[in-house]
């Protein structure tokens, strides 16, 4: 948010007017999931259990949207073939 709006400019009734996709929760992450594409069987269990909707299936392969991934590791724990490993974020 660049500048705060006055009460005359915001919509009535406390209607939330922006989508939370603007908020990148990826910077919460300490460990990041990395998918080994050779081991991945594309069973989509990680996509199903991801609480942040950050596993994406593009029709050919599964990848992680690091903009929103909070690094909880549920995907790595649930993966039946252990194709996902949690790697420490080393920072920029």
């Amino acid at each position: 948010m660049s500048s705060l709006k006055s009460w005359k400019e915001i919509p009535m009734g406390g209607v939330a007017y922006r989508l939370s996709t603007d908020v990148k929760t990826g910077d919460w992450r300490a460990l990041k999931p990395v998918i080994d594409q050779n081991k991945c069987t594309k069973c989509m269990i990680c996509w199903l259990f991801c609480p942040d909707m950050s596993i994406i299936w593009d029709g050919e392969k599964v990848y992680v949207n690091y903009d929103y991934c909070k690094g909880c590791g549920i995907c790595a724990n649930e993966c039946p073939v252990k194709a996902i490993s949690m790697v420490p974020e080393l920072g920029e």
Partner: protein
Amino acid sequence: MVVKTLPEIQVKKGEPPYKIWIFEPGEKKELPLIFNLRQLAEQRRPALLPGHRMCAGCAAPIVVKLASFAFRGPTIVVTATGCLEVSTTIYPYTSWALPWIHNAFENAAATASGIEAAIKAMKKTGRLKYENVDVVVFAGDGGTYDIGFQALSGMAERGHDVLYILYDNEAYMNTGIQRSGGTPKYAWTTTSPVGRVIPGKSENKKPIADIMVAHRIPYVATATPAHWMDLVKKVRKGIEVNGPAFIHALSSCDRGWRHEESISVEVLRRAVDTCYFPLWEWSPETGYLLTDRSLVIARNPSLKQPIEKFLEVQGRFRHLLRPENKELVKQLQEYVDATWNDLLKRASNAPR
């Protein structure tokens, strides 16, 4: 109010991975249930958008996500105050891809009743653009067991066509892990601390699903997101019945239950494997029916795990694993066995 455009991440020929659900007026199509995960990923978008501020490893967004795959068409979501409401709609942001309303802590069921009555009235006068609109409530255990119970009971008594989904993380996690009616016996919380005087909460969990069965509403079920197919089927059944329906979904909380974030789904699986949280459904016609993993355990009792399997991964039960507290674990085991045997007697599909 024009909503800002969604970030363009190319998935499947120019389709963004995160979409707001828009239903054209008069659209009659009933969304089918899909159990093939790759098809599901291609054809459905969850009702919850990313960027919500739930803790890493929270199971509540998984409950909402799985439930939204069972929605059949235009739906209005109501949430009671709780973790889910507070962290998905931090003003001016919203994570809901559906029409969503929050009113107050205690009256989620009453708000949903009002919406359902308004839909009926609009339909009667021909002002409703859709064939039917479903109303789904998501509420936590504080908003259901304790604060919102009178509204829920009233909704069930008046027979409004609303599906009420309780995601039960067994304490007031949002305000800092205070005990609720849903907290199990001997669990540590900040208002039932473990010490020399008491070994955690000294009362048992309120059997909320059995209380809803006693209201004799058309559909009551228990579910966990770990058994996702079961959960999706039950949500669809709850939406389809004509009248109030109630689903009790156990949802782990890594901050309050004091377990690692990565085993949030695993711990729910253990809750079902130890029969701490049996999966069943109830309707006036069929009576109690065991489902999914609990039915497997009923047919093959050797699969039933001791309660320690559920307790050992959680920090809130850490004091129970000390040698001097063996007696308390035995009491818990006896309580779990008693409720499980009682359920086996009532369930019509359990082997005798």
